[in-house]
């Protein structure tokens, strides 16, 4: 009936306005309220049905709880309220109450002939919105609509508070809220799907950022302040108003804090649910974070912030990251217990350099960066990165710039860079290490991989430039997401001479390219990134792969393998089809593991091997394009680290992948992955 339709639409209305006006709009409300009645007593059921019909409600009878649940599941929005008996033979009414609350989040009214206090209390504790004593009178049923309205109102209010973007109320809110809300609401930290949405939203926002109010960028410092305030107040007592007061940041509104708090809470919740790693949560958390931070430091606190903000990074991780970042910039060695310190450090150096470049990148679009992690970084971001990369110096960050549209990219890039450096130092052996540590989380951005590829390649052109080049390439590759396109990037890898020089396999690049193209979708490994990477990686991946190989090749196939694997992981994830086998959770790890496992990569020296490697790697790495993987191996590894880190982070966030690298990635990125 109209009413029910109207009700339905109202109930699903995203805008509070729509909902609020519902009552006004429809004089017939609550008529048409869709009620599901569950009671094993047929007599009672008949009576209730008749009573509810008399109230002009739409009634569905059910004498079994299981059937009721089925009905509810089939018609997600088919009912407004559920009335259930307490004592039922097949399922306890309270159990049904819980299920409904969890799965459908509908108001549930309990009924019973039992009016004992304990039973009624049980109803309250289980979340029933009302408790009716049998025999039920029609007067009692006439008012049940209030529970529907109340619930909707509360939900709406929550949504508003969190600045839910999904509600479509972004416009009026500060852009930052929109960002937050989208991520928060979507539980960005939770699943890739949501992130994707966010990404899209982020992209939109980015585009229209000029039209919107200036967003609050939750920089590392700002977030640190926030976290400090929250910790000071105690997470339970932390209310936006007080946090705001403690933070004492001019221009920051309570709403900003509120939405950020919501995200943070989601993040914390996610963490506690996801990573059971004791270390993860606190210490390790910091450490890895720091590590990642370190790596990312170059990225710029903002990036992290953005990342975190966008929900890509769990709040905590973000915090750690931020801390790390801040710190890493300051000092090269972050105490990353989890992460290979060496790697970390190596990261730092390049990062710092990168950071410079990044700085302006990030500053230009902090939000993008963050969003970027899993999302796509706009090409411009990458470009920025790229540019900044260039300024970096040793590292071919430039490439990174390309790929790294997202902060993720940056992160990755910076990481790769550092890795690259490390690589230089270690010449290959490190690669595995690096990659492991680095690779883990970041992968997120397809671009990075792509970027890396470019970078590496470009530089690699010379082959020798393995390290730096790789860095670039790896960096590029890493950007996993957005940049995955790696617009033009620099990936010239494919084309770059470096590739050929690197691997001397000239052919490789081509192969790689091909490979990469194939893989183009890393996707599989990182659930989150998959989407992102997939489209991108193609060329890049291949290229990168080739590059990495080259670089590493020189030493031995192992090297290449590692690198490639590393790269592969990262970049390949997208490109790799085979990578598909890798599950996202393992992505981070996968990356490394691939490297390690891919000794076969050795073959890579020929681009073709690389391809295969890439294939494997890509599988693992979500990283969009790991193309550079090949040559970059060592380099990539570093890059991976970043990307992996990012991706890992993201993944963790999203998927709560506690178990595998995700957790790892999250906290300390890389411990697991470090192939060393």
């Amino acid at each position, binding site marked *: 009936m109209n009413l029910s339709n109207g009700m339905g639409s109202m109930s699903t209305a995203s805008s509070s306005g729509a909902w609020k006006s519902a009552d006004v709009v429809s004089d017939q409300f609550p008529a048409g309220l869709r009620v599901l009645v569950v009671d094993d*007593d047929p007599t009672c059921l008949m009576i209730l049905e*008749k009573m509810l019909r008399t109230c002009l409600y739409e009634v569905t009878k059910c004498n079994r709880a299981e059937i009721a649940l089925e009905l509810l599941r089939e018609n997600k929005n088919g009912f407004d309220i559920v009335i259930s008996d307490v004592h039922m033979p097949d399922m306890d009414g309270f159990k049904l109450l819980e299920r409904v609350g969890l799965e459908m989040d509908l108001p549930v009214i309990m009924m019973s002939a039992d009016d004992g206090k304990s039973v009624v209390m049980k109803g309250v504790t289980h979340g029933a919105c009302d408790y009716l004593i049998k*025999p039920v009178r029609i007067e009692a049923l006439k008012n049940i609509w209030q529970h529907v309205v109340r619930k909707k109102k509360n939900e709406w209010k929550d949504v508003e508070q969190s600045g839910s973007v999904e509600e479509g109320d972004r416009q009026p809110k500060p852009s930052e809220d929109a960002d937050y809300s989208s991520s928060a609401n979507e539980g960005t930290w939770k699943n890739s799907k949501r992130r994707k949405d966010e990404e899209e939203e982020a992209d939109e926002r980015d585009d229209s950022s000029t039209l919107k109010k200036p967003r609050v960028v939750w920089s590392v410092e700002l977030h640190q302040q926030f976290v400090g305030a929250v910790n000071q107040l105690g997470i339970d007592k932390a209310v936006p108003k007080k946090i705001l007061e403690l933070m004492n940041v001019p221009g920051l509104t309570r709403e900003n804090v509120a939405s950020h708090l919501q995200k943070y809470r989601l993040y914390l919740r996610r963490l506690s649910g996801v990573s059971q790693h004791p270390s993860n949560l606190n210490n390790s958390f910091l450490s890895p974070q720091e590590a990642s931070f370190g790596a990312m430091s170059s990225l710029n606190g903002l990036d992290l912030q953005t990342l975190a903000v966008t929900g890509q990074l769990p709040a905590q991780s973000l915090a750690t990251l931020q801390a790390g970042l801040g710190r890493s910039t300051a000092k090269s060695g972050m105490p990353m217990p989890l992460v290979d310190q060496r790697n970390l450090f190596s990261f730092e150096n390049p990062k710092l350099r990168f950071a410079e470049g990044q700085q302006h990148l990030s500053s230009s679009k902090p939000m993008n960066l963050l969003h970027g992690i899993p999302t796509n970084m706009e090409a411009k971001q990458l470009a920025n990165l790229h540019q900044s990369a260039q300024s970096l110096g040793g590292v071919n960050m430039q490439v990174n710039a390309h790929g790294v549209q997202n902060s993720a990219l940056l992160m990755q890039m910076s990481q790769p860079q550092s890795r690259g450096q490390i690589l230089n130092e270690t010449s290959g052996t490190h690669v595995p290490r690096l990659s492991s540590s680095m690779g883990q989380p970041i992968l997120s951005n397809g671009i990075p991989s792509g970027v890396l590829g470019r970078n590496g390649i470009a530089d690699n052109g010379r082959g020798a430039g393995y390290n730096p080049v790789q860095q670039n390439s790896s960096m590029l590759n890493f950007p996993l997401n957005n940049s995955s396109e790696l617009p033009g990037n620099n990936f010239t890898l494919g084309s770059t001479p470096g590739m050929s020089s690197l691997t001397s396999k000239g052919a490789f690049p081509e192969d790689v390219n091909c490979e990469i193209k194939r893989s183009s979708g890393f996707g599989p490994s990182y659930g989150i990134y998959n989407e992102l990477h997939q489209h991108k990686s193609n060329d890049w991946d291949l290229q990168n792969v080739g590059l990495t190989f080259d670089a590493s090749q020189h030493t031995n196939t192992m090297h290449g393998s590692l690198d490639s694997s590393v790269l592969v992981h990262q970049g390949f994830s997208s490109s790799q089809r085979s990578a598909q086998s890798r599950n996202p959770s393992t992505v981070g790890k996968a990356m490394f593991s691939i490297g390690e496992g891919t000794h076969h990569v050795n073959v890579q020296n020929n681009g073709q091997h690389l391809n295969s490697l890439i294939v494997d790697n890509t599988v693992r790495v979500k990283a969009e394009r790991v193309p550079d993987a090949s040559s970059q191996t060592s380099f990539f590894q570093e890059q991976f680290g970043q990307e992996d880190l990012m991706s890992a982070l993201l993944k963790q966030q999203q998927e709560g992948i506690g178990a595998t690298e995700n957790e790892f990635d999250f906290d300390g990125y890389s411990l697991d992955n470090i192939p060393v």
Partner: protein
Amino acid sequence: MDKNQSRRQVRLMRQSLFDQGFLDEQFIQLEELQDDANPNFVEEIATSYYRDSSRSLPTIELALEKTPRDFNKLDGYMHQFKGSSSSIGAKKVKAECQQFREYCKAGNGEGCMRTFQALKKEHATLKKRLEAYFQMARQAGPIETACRPK
């Protein structure tokens, strides 16, 4: 009997059911639900009740006879029985159910047995009275809306 007489008869019968405590307010609720869409709603409900309760009584009886008595189970059965009885307004039956539950809680098997017998009796009595009432009501034709017992 003529129509008027029939109708008066029905009214009286109905009134006595209330007066004698067989039915309570809930029955009136049911009567109020009766409308043109469901002209025999109350009778349908009563029929449904008796159909179900007739099935559950033997179950309870069996459980009662089993020794050692499972009072929790018995209490559970009775809870259910009480619920449906109260939903049609079967006042006396409901009272017996309550009593039965009290004995169950006290673990008084004998008390349960006694009460159960009384319950069965009330259950049967009400059934007869209602059947007569409904029959008369059908014969008398549609009656005026329910009026509360004085």
